[in-house]
């Protein structure tokens, strides 16, 4: 089977190695495409690395009014084409995983393209090569079989089912991760 990207948030130790490795890339030097999110900074040290999940029906590309976000046959959803991107941030709002970044300095959207310059020639993405705890893993799916968590590609986001190319490691009893924006809003209000 082809090399696959797995994200296992339970293994993340928040070391930021992925963030800095990403910024080393020559195609976007100094700007990291990896998001390292704190789940609840006050109460927990838990962090979650977020790379592009490369959806099978990418919402970012669907909402792009400038037709700037394209997907290659290997399933990689690319960063906005600079000649077309108008910096409207539609994709930033549409992505259920919060992956695209709007950079005011360039008036462009930039996002993780799974290190296309590397993975297209058989190398591993920068973040996966440096992750010390295996939270970001790129390789044979058989290597992940030994882990307690199981990979999922299905996310129920509101009323919409999203299937991704990148696998998220979840609890063995979970098949589909159900997320609702309303739940997170309530949490924010509670915390505030």
């Amino acid at each position, binding site marked *: 089977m082809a090399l696959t990207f797995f994200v296992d948030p339970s293994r993340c130790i928040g070391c930021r190695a992925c963030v800095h490795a990403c910024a080393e890339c020559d195609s976007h030097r100094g700007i990291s495409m990896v998001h390292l999110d704190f789940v609840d900074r006050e109460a927990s040290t838990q962090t979650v690395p977020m790379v592009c999940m490369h959806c099978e*029906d*990418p919402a970012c*590309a*669907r909402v*792009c009014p400038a*037709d700037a*976000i*394209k*997907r*290659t*046959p290997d399933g990689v959803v*690319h960063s906005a*084409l600079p*000649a*077309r991107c108008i910096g409207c941030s539609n994709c930033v709002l549409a992505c259920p995983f919060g992956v695209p970044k709007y950079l005011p300095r360039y008036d462009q959207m930039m996002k993780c393209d799974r290190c296309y310059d590397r993975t297209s020639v058989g190398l591993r993405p920068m973040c996966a090569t440096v992750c010390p705890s295996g939270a970001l893993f790129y390789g044979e799916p058989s290597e992940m079989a030994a882990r307690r968590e199981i990979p999922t590609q299905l996310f129920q986001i509101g009323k919409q089912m999203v299937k991704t190319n990148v696998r998220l490691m979840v609890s063995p009893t979970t098949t589909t991760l159900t997320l609702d924006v309303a739940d997170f809003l309530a949490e924010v209000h509670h915390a505030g």
Partner: protein
Amino acid sequence: MPAERWRQDFPIDWQEDDYVTRRQFAGFLTLISGGLFLGTALLGIRDWWRRTFIPPARVLRVASVGEVPVGSAKLFAYPNADDRCLLIRTAPETFVAYNQACTHLACPVTYRRGARELYCPCHEGYFALDDGRPLSGPPKRPLPRVLLSVRGDGVWATGVIES
């Protein structure tokens, strides 16, 4: 996912995307206009080369006076074999001759017996018989005029005046 018409117009997959960006289009325009400029420049250089280094026209006997009755025409080639020209006798003592290629798109112009103009049938172009100037239709430049000289009973071409 249903394939609506607008989804086909704005495909997500890189292969199906054939939209041309403004930059690509501008680059294409620049290439085309550069090619046109280069081609025109080469043609101009070729013409200048010919005018400067090709020896002047030779003198050629094209007809005898009795061969062309008043109001009729004769075809001849001058100064080269592929330059077709019309010799027309407009009056007993008057001959005129023009290159037959219309100055619009080089269709051969024709002369109808007794007419006062030359006619190009391709795009309805008319030229004055007396001096070759364009009268109507698309041509904007006069026909190249062949200089004539009548010596004895011979009509001789002595040169060409380009418009």
